[in-house]
Every structure is written in C-alpha cells, then in structure tokens.
C-alpha cells in the first residue's frame, strides 16, 4: 500500500439492480475519493443510493445487483471483478463496516468476548492471544469494565454499548477504511453524542479513513471534513463540509438545508420550506438533470441534458447549470401560511393531568415508568415531551389516551375526570383524544384500503356514513393534501409521508380536542418531515387542537412546541415555555440533552458528558433520580433528598436543588458562546 494513494477511489460507478427482468439504475456515475485519515460524509434521503454505495465497496450487493461499469479502488487496488476469495480477504484486512442496528449486527447466542475474539482467531491468533487482544479492543472503545462485558450476551448490553462492541470488532483488524452506515440513528441523543465522540477519538488514534453515511446533516457537520450529496444515485454536490453547508451550490442541497428546523426556528415565525414532488422512479431512464422535476430553478436546458460537473472552487463542485443562483431557489411553501393562533391560558385548560403514576409489574419487579407527573394543556397549544428512551414519554401519552389504566392519578378533559380506560369512557371523550403514531407502517391496517380506513374513522369519530361520508372523505383527504387517487390503494403502496398523511387524516376525522403525536416524523426523510410539520401546524391553526408532541429531535420539538416538558426516569424534571427551556437557565439534565445534539450550524454548546447509563426504572436512585449522572451535583443533598418541582420563574417549573440564579450563572458562559456561524470542526 502506498501512502499517496487515496484510501477509497470511486470512478464513474454505475450500479444496477435487476428487477422483473429489467435493470434499474441505482448509482449513476458516482466518483469520489477519500484520502488517508479523512472522514467523508455521504448524505441524502432514503432511496438515493447511500447504502448501495457502501455495499458496492465491500462487494455485498444483493444477488440481483451488479456493478455495470466504473471502478472502485481501495488503497490503490481495484475491487471490481475480484474473486470471492479476494473479496473476503479485502473485508478481513482493509475495509470494515458498521451498520445502523447494533442489536442485529451481533449474534445473540454468543458471548460478547467470544464474538470479538473470533475476529482475532480468523487472523491466526491463539486462544489466549485473542482474549488478550479482545480485552484491549474493548478498552479502546472506552468500555468501562471490559472483563464483565466480555462474559455477557449482546442483549444484556444497552444499544450504545452494543454499538461500541461492533465498532471494536470493526477496528480489530486495523482497517484502512471504515464504513459507518447510519451508526447512531437508532440511539438516543446522549448516547449518540458519546458514540460520535468515540468515533472521532478512534479516528485520530487509528488514522483510519471513514466513509460516514447518514441522513442527518448535523452529524455530518460534527463528524466530517468533506461531504458528498447524493440524489437519485447521482453525486450532485461535493465539497468541504463548512463550504457545502454554508454556501450550498445545488438546489437539492439548498432545499435539504431549508427543510430542517434549526437555529431556533418556530412555528409562529414562519413555515418550513419543503421539496415538492418525489424521487424519480427507478424505471425512468434519466437523460436530464436528476433533480429537474422538483427544482424551482429548472429551465428547459435542465430537462434536456444532464449538467456537467461545475468546479466552483478547487475542492467544491456542483452538478447544476444554475449553481450560481442555487441559493435563490424559490420557496416551495410560502413562509406565511396558516399562522398559529395565540393560546389563551387565562381560561380553564383543555386537559389537566394530575399526579399521573404508572408502575408496571414485570417478573415480580416493579417498573416505575411514571411518577406523579402533572401537566395541563390549553386549546391550540403544543406541549413538547422530551427525554431519553425509558423516560416515560410514551407511557404518559398512552395513559392519557386510556390505552391502559394508570396506577394512580387522574386525567381531566374539559374539567371532568375521565375514566381510566377506553372501555369506560364515553363516545365523546374517546373522540376527543386521538393519536398519530411514529411508524406509519404499523399504524395503518395493511389489509384495508385507504378509503375503507378513513370511511370507518368518519363513521366512528364523526358519526357520518353513507353518501355524505364520501363527500367528507374527499374534504378530509384534501385537508391533509392526500390526492384522491390514493384512496383506492392499500397503505403498502404509499410512501412513508403519504401513509403519515392518512394517519393524520384518521386522527382528524372527528373533531379531536387533543392529538398525541408520538414521534410522527422520526421515520421520515427531512423534506417529508417538513411537509408533515407544516401540515400539523396548519391543522392546529384551523381546528384549535392541542398537541402532545413526543420527539427526540430537539429542533423539531422547538419548532412546534409552545411549552416543553422534560422527563427523566418517569419524573418531570423541567417544564416551561419552549424558548425558556431552550435558552436557559436549564435543568442540568436538559442542559446535557441540548449539548448532545449535533447541529448544522456548528456545536456551539460545550459537550456535557453524562456519567454512566440511564438507571433502571425498577430501582431508581435515591434522592434526585438524576444525581448518579449529574455534572452539577452539589453534594449529599442530591443523593438523599428528592428536590421538589418548583416554579422558578413564571411558568417555568424545575426539579433541582441548585437555585435558579446559580444555574443562570453556571450556564451563562456556554450559552453566550453560541456563535451564529463559525467552525463546525470537531477539533474544539
């Protein structure tokens, strides 16, 4: 291996999948190079060909896929056309890959130690050597107690720990190239931040080149030096991360960046922009610009011929005729549509939850999923619910809906107490509370056509059937921008965004008072997410419906919420107006959550590392439940006494022993350091 050769070099790579006797082109002449020790980010929405690129490099294309032309060179050596044996050697020695779901990447029936040691066995190590090397490998990925981890099975580890083990295995052979395919997408924000820190750290130590595949522009900004934007199998823009994110020169990149709610974007200050239309179908043989159909700048020339690669600066290129005007891309969605209505909190609240508690019994243990959480919601208001997985967000929402009975506490709607479960609630109460689920695939019955699903909802929730129902159905579909032609098909034939529109239409079939949105956009691409968020805001303005909005994406929560509640281990830690919770002073836990999120505009906040993992809800810590991980712990009082939830400012509740003024003082430097622009480099 010569040091001057790039670690990975793709040249005019064309990949096709053969489906029903025809070749469908997935990658169209992709060329990119990754130098030694460089981190290259590949970004794009689902179906753009990101994963196919990675699979082509390691020779793992599905059996119907093949490289039609082009070349892949790893450390100067041609990969295309290698025999299976040579490919195996390549994967054993030069390239490693880490996938999105660590739980699936590990064999559930083999102890972690034996699994990692296997990599060293393959490379000819003896038993003792392999175990010794495994111990070292696990220490390198900052696993605190490697011996005990080695003796455990994968399911006994948390998601973050599992991903560390997978990374340890990937680095075990000291590869020249490490491919990370959405390595943190399934992890909580705080865990994601730790894994990203670890990858950065290891990259410096091992001098490995990294191909980082993600849909998250914030992660790209944090992790990568250069970025390539992939659209419909075509690399449409490439350049240094700072340049591409701050001075994008392709309309698709511009559109993507506008879709993401960031920099304090809020629903009352304007709507998110969207990218109209859909990815081109794989059947289409594209001779024009791949993005022309969705581009607001497209002219005849764009539809007539494929634009060449324009070199804007030495290292920044764009495949757009109008790269100079890219940032002048007209908005697809006007900024001033359907302004939200002001919330009047002087009146009685719509929903009042009092001391809601839920304890699950599991194998004789009591899981305290929710501990005396109280909250109120006014008509037309959105309460954002944030916290790591296991914090009780979903339990809270489902108990409010009546899907199960709470152990203690009450839910009041319009000042009357609701019976604990659905079966005992009146028809009107049931109609008033609806939900939009996270995963539109499982939220819609896959055996029923869209029309049937919505007709039934109209009948049950609005009491309309027969001929008037058909009319209402069309109005309803129109209000969620669902074209009439989609009514006849089954959900499986719809894209994720369209399915979510059907789910929203179902929730709005009656006149709901409160709609629980349980991560409604986290399974969607950013451009679709923007459209769905816009729709939710618009419907809220029209119907004065209240939302209980659960999300782990703080940018999204900030955009849509009027107030935010932060949960930890089933307890309300902080609640207040969205701006106050985000701008601080915050609860130390909120502070840590906020600092963990990688942002496109650069990581202004200093990263706060939380010690250890979220404790078990079966045995919550004494005193303040957060004291075991808190970076601002002040002493024994935190371990012994649970702080009360007090109103520290008007409308701002917090559960912490540290006085608000002290928190304000402690947090000020970090808050003030938020730059409007600046370095996105992780070196800081």
């Amino acid at each position, binding site marked *: 291996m010569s040091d001057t050769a790039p670690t990975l070099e793709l040249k005019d790579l064309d990949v096709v999948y053969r489906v*029903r006797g025809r070749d469908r082109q997935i990658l169209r002449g992709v060329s990119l190079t990754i130098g030694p020790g460089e981190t290259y980010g590949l970004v794009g929405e689902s179906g753009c060909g990101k994963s196919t690129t990675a699979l082509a490099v390691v020779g793992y294309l599905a059996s119907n896929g093949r490289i039609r032309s082009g070349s892949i060179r790893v450390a100067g050596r041609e990969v295309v056309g290698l025999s299976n044996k040579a490919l195996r050697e390549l994967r054993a020695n030069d390239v490693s890959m880490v996938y999105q779901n660590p739980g699936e990447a590990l064999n559930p029936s083999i102890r972690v130690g034996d699994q990692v040691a296997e990599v060293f066995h393959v490379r000819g190590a003896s038993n003792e050597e392999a175990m010794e090397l495994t111990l070292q490998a696990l220490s390198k990925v900052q696993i605190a107690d490697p011996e005990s981890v080695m003796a455990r099975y994968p399911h006994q580890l948390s998601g973050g720990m599992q991903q560390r083990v997978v990374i340890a295995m990937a680095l075990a052979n000291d590869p020249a190239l490490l491919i990370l395919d959405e390595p943190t997408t399934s992890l909580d924000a705080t865990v994601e931040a730790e894994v990203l820190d670890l990858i950065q750290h290891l990259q410096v130590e091992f001098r490995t080149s990294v191909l980082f595949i993600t849909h998250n522009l914030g992660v790209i900004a944090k992790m990568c030096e250069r970025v390539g934007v992939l659209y419909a199998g075509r690399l449409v823009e490439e350049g240094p991360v700072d340049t591409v994110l701050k001075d994008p020169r392709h309309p698709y990149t511009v559109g993507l960046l506008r879709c993401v709610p960031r920099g304090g974007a809020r629903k009352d200050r304007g709507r998110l922009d969207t990218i109209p239309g859909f990815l081109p*179908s794989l*059947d289409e043989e594209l001779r024009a610009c791949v993005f022309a159909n969705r581009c607001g700048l497209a002219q005849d020339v764009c539809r007539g011929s494929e634009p060449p690669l324009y070199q804007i600066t030495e290292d920044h290129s764009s495949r757009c005729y109008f790269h100079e005007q890219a940032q002048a891309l007209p908005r697809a969605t006007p900024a001033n549509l359907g302004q939200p209505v002001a919330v009047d909190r002087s009146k009685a609240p719509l929903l009042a939850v009092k001391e809601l508690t839920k304890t699950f019994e599991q194998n004789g243990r009591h899981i305290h999923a929710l501990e005396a959480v109280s909250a109120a919601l006014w008509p037309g208001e959105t309460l954002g619910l944030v916290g790591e997985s296991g914090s009780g967000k979903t339990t809270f929402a*489902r108990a409010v*809906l009546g*899907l199960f009975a709470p152990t203690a506490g009450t839910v009041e709607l319009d000042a009357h107490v609701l019976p604990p479960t*659905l079966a005992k609630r009146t*028809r009107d109460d*049931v*109609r008033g*509370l*609806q*939900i939009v*689920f*996270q*995963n539109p695939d*499982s*939220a*819609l*019955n*896959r*055996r*029923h056509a869209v029309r049937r699903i919505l007709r*039934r*909802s109209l009948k*049950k*929730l609005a009491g309309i059937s027969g001929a008037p129902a058909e009319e209402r159905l069309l109005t309803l579909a129109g209000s969620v921008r669902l*074209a009439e*032609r989609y009514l006849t*098909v*089954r959900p499986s*034939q719809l894209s994720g965004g369209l399915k979510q529109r059907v*789910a929203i239409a*179902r929730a709005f079939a009656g006149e709901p008072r409160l709609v629980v949105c349980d991560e409604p956009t986290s399974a969607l691409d950013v451009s679709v997410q923007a459209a769905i968020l816009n729709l939710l805001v618009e419907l809220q303005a029209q119907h004065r419906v209240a939302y209980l909005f659960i999300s782990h994406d703080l940018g999204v929560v900030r955009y849509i919420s009027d107030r935010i509640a932060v949960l930890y281990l089933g307890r309300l830690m902080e609640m207040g107006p969205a701006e106050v919770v985000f701008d601080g002073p915050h609860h130390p836990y909120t502070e840590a959550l906020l600092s963990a999120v990688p942002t496109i505009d650069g990581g202004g906040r200093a990263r706060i590392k939380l010690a250890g993992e979220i404790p078990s809800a079966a045995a919550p810590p004494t005193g303040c439940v957060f004291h075991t991980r808190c970076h601002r712990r002040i002493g024994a009082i935190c371990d012994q006494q649970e702080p009360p939830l007090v109103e520290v400012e008007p409308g701002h509740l917090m559960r912490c022993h540290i006085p608000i003024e002290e928190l304000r003082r402690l947090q000020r430097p970090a808050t003030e350091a938020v730059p409007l622009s600046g370095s996105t480099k992780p070196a800081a």
Partner: protein
Amino acid sequence: MSTVATTVQLSETRIARRETRQQLLRSKTFMAGAIIIAFWVLCAVFGHRIAPHDPLAQSFPQLEGLSRTYPFGTDQLGRDVFSRVLAGARDILIVAPLATLLGIVGGTIIGLVTGYFRGLTDDVVSRIVDAVLSLPLIVIAVTVLVALGHSTLTVIVVIGLVFAPIVSRTVRAAVLAERQLDYVSASRLQGERAPYVMFVEILPNVMGPIVVEATVRLGYAIFAVAGLTFLGFGVQPPSPDWALQIADNYTLLGAGTYWWTVLFPALAIISLVVAVNLVADGLARVFGR
C-alpha cells in the same frame, strides 16, 4: 404526471399479485400437489361415471389378479378394484375438508379471543387446550363415537373439535404478534369494540398462517378419517371408500397372494395425503412461514 403515477401504482399492485401467483405456479412442490389433488377431486365427482365397471357391483370373478379387464384385479366379493379406487375418493373428500373447516373456524375464534384478551381468559382456555392435546385423537374419537353412535356428522364434529385447540395455538401466536401493532391501538382509540378489532382488523392480517395451518390440518384429517373408517367408525359400507376397501380385504394379506386388494387403495390414500402436504409446503413458503 399525476395520472402517470396512478397507472404505475396500480400496475405495481397487479404485478405484485401476479408475482405471488407466479411464485406458486413456479413452485414444483405446490404444483405437483395441486395436480394430484385436482385429479382426485375429479375422480370424486365423476369417478362413478368414468370407472370401467360399476364400483359397487359384485358380479365379477372373485380375487382375480391384474388383467386387461381388471387392471387392479378384483376383491373377494368380486368387485373391480380399479373402479373402486377411482370412485373411492368421494366420501373422504367430503368428510375430511368439512372436519378441517370446523376445526379452523373454531380454532381461529379461540385463538383470536385468547390472543387478543390474554390475561385470565387466555390462561383458562389455554389449560383446557393443553388437556385436549394430551390425549391421542383416535382415542377421543373412538370413545365419543361409541358413546354417541356413529354417523358421518359425528365424525366431522369430533375431528373438528379436536383440531380446534391445535389450530388455536397457531392463531394465538400470530395474534399476539399482531396486537402489538399500532393499528390495533388506533382502532381502539376510535371506540371500536373487541369483536370488530378481532375479526375485521386483526383477522385479515393473520390469514396467511391460517391458510397454511388449514392445509396441514387437511392432511391430518384425511389420515384420521381413514383410520376411523378402517376401525369401522367412519365411512360405512357399501361405499367404495379406500380405507373401507383395506378393512374389507386386509385379512387376505395373510395368504400373501391377494396384495392388489389392499395395495392400490393404500397408494391412493398415500398419494392424497402427500399431495396435500406438498401444497401446504408450497403455501408456507410463499406466505413466508
């Protein structure tokens, strides 16, 4: 552009459906089984008419070996074995599918209820199911038939009732997986009652496993009916039923010479059971189980 998208989508559905069908047609196991079953169904319907001789007539020479006139020989009452094999599918192909149908319907209901409600209902019903499963089918069937007197209806009911708990386990497992999905919660949040959720929302989604289970059960039902008939509790004379033929003639095997009286009806039963299982395999593979 929008119309183009619609046509593309609709044709995609049609293509997907055609693909399922083609997958079945291409599956050699499925096709072999289906052809054999189709043959025996035709025989059950038209067997009496296409048979060279009257299957019930006792007017031929007794215990003749294979010949041009009597391809499978004749039995001890002077009946043509070939004609009787052709016509012998009728009763078993009525009794076994009806028993299976009863078992599937009963088992589906039990499975839906136990899987959906869980808790106490599930515990109680599941223990009863375990109790039924611990006794051999033939023992239960013979006991009931002796107690109640045998009729075709009783045979169908007994086999159906014994199958129901077995089927219910498969259905329950499928329902348990299905009820976790959000559309079930969504349906409850619309104020749907349990029967609607079970039968309209969940049932269509567990039809795959039920269809596969039905074919597997059909194989066992054919087995059971043949066994009961052989013991004298199933199909009654003078039907040319295969198991009845074996029962009539198996004592002659001792002499060693009259094998054809038993072999051909036995082969017929075997071919039918094997064919049903081939179809079950094919379906299971397509439905991904």
